[in-house]
């Protein structure tokens, strides 16, 4: 293996413990892309903190660690503060260290702006991280090329200082030289407009929300911690958004959301037969309404999907028998393994649970009253999808 260390660089080894931890935390992000971004940035941030802590114990991340995930869901880059100096870390997996591309957020949002910007190369398989160059905010504003296709300030490697010894000595001896260029303040965003933007960008199908609206609006949105968090939660479909609850009561009146389809559309005749097989003929008449939703697991390249089937049978004035089934879709006969299904009440307490390794389906039944809320959590591999319901 060819690791030739250059004493002018910072070469940091990745700890497997930190790696596992960051991997786990990065799952909270909303797209495969943003999970990977969170993974790289988390690794970078934690490793650099550890390295610098030995020389500068007062170092701390510029935002709370938890906050960072709402940032990484939408943009690359991390930041630490040493005293009053802010270092912005820009990780990249590229093999050729030919440039530093800093997202506009880190250069033009006044509360985010840093003093120094460090180019970090991340090599996950070989377990190291390497800081090979740096520049200042001023240099970025004056010399960098702004690429509007991805809103980054780009400096070629030749324009960076590829000497971290010089960086640290400069930091120690030069106090805090003024390396920040002036940044115009962002316009005030009225809360109503922020709300509407969050709704619009809160759809995780919008892959690049940061490019979907003008930067003046986007920057203003991201600079408020509350709005950042709301956007993150919106994209995660977390229960703070009433729209993510499926109202089963409406099903009884024949009204269904588009993602809940007729059983025949989602399951093949073979699978429907298997699904029905588990019910005696007398009981099957009880269920007046059934719908299915496809839940996607895996990555876009290796898709694994399951069908979540919900059946309702009214048993009284306001009482309903609910049956939940999780079964395979498409050409699959068995569930992608392993699958775990949890039934939770409105406050997240566990009512029921079933785990399957290789099986045809999972099934749960319970009775509930009108107005009651519950959640179904389906977990496969590292992905967990939660569906919220209200009778």
């Amino acid at each position, binding site marked *: 293996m060819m690791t030739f260390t250059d004493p002018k660089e910072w070469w940091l080894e990745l700890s497997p413990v930190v790696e596992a931890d960051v991997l786990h935390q990065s799952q909270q992000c909303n797209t495969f892309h943003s999970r990977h971004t969170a993974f790289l940035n988390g690794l970078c941030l934690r490793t650099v903190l550890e390295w610098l802590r030995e020389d500068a114990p007062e170092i701390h991340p510029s935002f709370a660690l938890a906050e960072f995930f709402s940032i990484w869901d939408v943009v690359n880059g991390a930041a630490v503060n040493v005293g009053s100096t802010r270092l912005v870390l820009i990780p990249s997996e590229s*093999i050729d260290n030919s440039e530093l591309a800093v997202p506009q957020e880190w250069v033009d949002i006044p509360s985010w702006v840093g003093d120094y910007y460090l180019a970090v190369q991340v090599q996950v398989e070989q377990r190291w991280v390497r800081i090979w160059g740096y520049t200042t905010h001023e240099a970025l504003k004056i010399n960098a090329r702004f690429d509007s296709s991805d809103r980054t300030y780009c400096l070629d490697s030749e324009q960076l200082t590829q000497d971290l010894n010089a960086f640290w000595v400069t930091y120690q001896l030069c106090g805090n030289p003024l390396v920040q260029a002036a940044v115009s303040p962002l316009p005030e965003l009225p809360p109503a407009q922020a709300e509407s933007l969050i709704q619009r960008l809160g759809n995780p199908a919008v892959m*690049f929300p940061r490019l979907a609206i003008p930067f003046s609006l986007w920057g203003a949105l991201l600079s408020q911690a509350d709005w950042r968090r709301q956007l993150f939660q919106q994209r995660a479909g977390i229960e703070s958004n009433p729209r993510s609850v499926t109202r089963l009561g409406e099903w009884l009146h024949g009204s269904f959301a588009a993602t809940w389809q007729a059983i025949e559309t989602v399951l093949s005749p073979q699978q429907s037969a298997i699904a029905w097989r588990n019910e005696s003929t007398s009981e099957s008449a009880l269920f007046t309404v059934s719908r299915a939703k496809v839940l996607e697991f895996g990555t876009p390249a290796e*898709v694994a999907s399951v069908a979540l089937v919900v059946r309702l049978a009214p048993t009284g004035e306001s009482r309903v028998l609910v049956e939940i089934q999780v079964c395979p879709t498409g050409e699959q006969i068995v569930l992608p393994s392993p699958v775990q299904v949890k039934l939770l009440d409105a406050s997240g307490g566990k009512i029921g649970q079933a785990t399957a390794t290789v099986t045809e389906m999972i099934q749960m039944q319970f009775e509930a009253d009108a107005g009651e809320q519950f959640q179904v959590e389906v977990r496969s591999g590292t992905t967990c999808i939660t569906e919220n319901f209200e009778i």
Partner: protein
Amino acid sequence: MRPRQKLIDLFSAFVQFEGDRFHGWLVDVGLRRSMQRLLSALPQSTREATSTDETFWALYWHQHWMQEQEGHTPSIALGHLSAYLQEPCYWAADRTLRKLRDSQYQLSDCFQMAIADVRTVLKRFKPDRGANLKTFANIAFPGLLTERLRQQHEADLCTNLGLLRRVSKRRFVEALRQAGLSASAIAHYQLAWVCFNALYVPQQTGTKPLPQVNNHLWQATTTLYNTERRNQLDSAIPDCNPELMERWLNQCAGWVRTYLYPPLESLNVPKSGLESKEEWQDDLTDPLHESLLTQLINQEIEQERQVQQSQVREAIETALNSLDNPSQTLLRLYYQQGLTQQQIMEQLQMSQSTVSRRLTKARESLLMAFVKWSQEALHTSPTPDLIQDMSAALEEWLGVHYGVLNPDSSSETADKEIGQ
């Protein structure tokens, strides 16, 4: 390898390999003629003063090269400098090749990779600091070569599509430009590339490789591309489809690999690092010529800088001796013996991260001591620029001090001295 002695050869001859061994020097007639003409155009006294002074001519050609516009035809200055730097290149290749445990590369391959970085070396060289181009090159080339080897190695481990995830935007665009694509075509391919990278994400369980590429992926990429295209580019071009998308991205992957990591061929031609068919752009009528010569001749007589240089050398030596022993050992192992991190690890029984950290900190302490000395002795106040310059000067000093630069004498004796 037999180093050159005569001035004109130094600026006009190139290494020739046969098999994998040094075979001889091949003179480029255009370059030789250029040097001969320049020398004969000088007044007698100047000619005598400079005809054995390679440092003078190296600086002259470097100044010339710096002041030129970037053109397509390689300038004659670059030709002379590439010739001049053949020995540093050769030694860098030789030294580096020995460090590689098992390698598919031959000496001539490494040499070819090293000389490809000649422009980078020239750009980084700062003559006003009183530095010597050959010394600088002797230190700069190995670092650049090892970096190039590392990149090549990592690229070899990637599949073509995997490589697309590991290339910077800058090189991606350059690769497509070199393949002859128009700016608008590049914009479309770039968007496709961005969409692909957003979806073709590794599964991070342990060291699992990238997932299988399949139709679903192309479908997803196409859908994303078609959506984004309407927002980001002008939608005059029709929607893409999965088959086309697959073709586009495979093409891009091919162009990137060809541009960045071309397959090496061991050829038996002058390794000037430049396309061998091109004619040197001759420029004797160049107005820079006269003024440059006078300027340099004056600089040569400057004594002050010489005195300062020896003060600096002493100061760094003192700083080095004031470091603790483990730090000094690490620096010696790295700079003098040129060991890799792994070799140092084994020798000192330390973990790789410990070696790396201590080595960095050792050099940092040295730099700090050097800067502080200049504050007290020369009354310079440390600015970011000055500290960077001093670090570069330090690098040169370390190269000289640890005897990296004895390659012009027989390499075997140099090794014997170093290997104690």
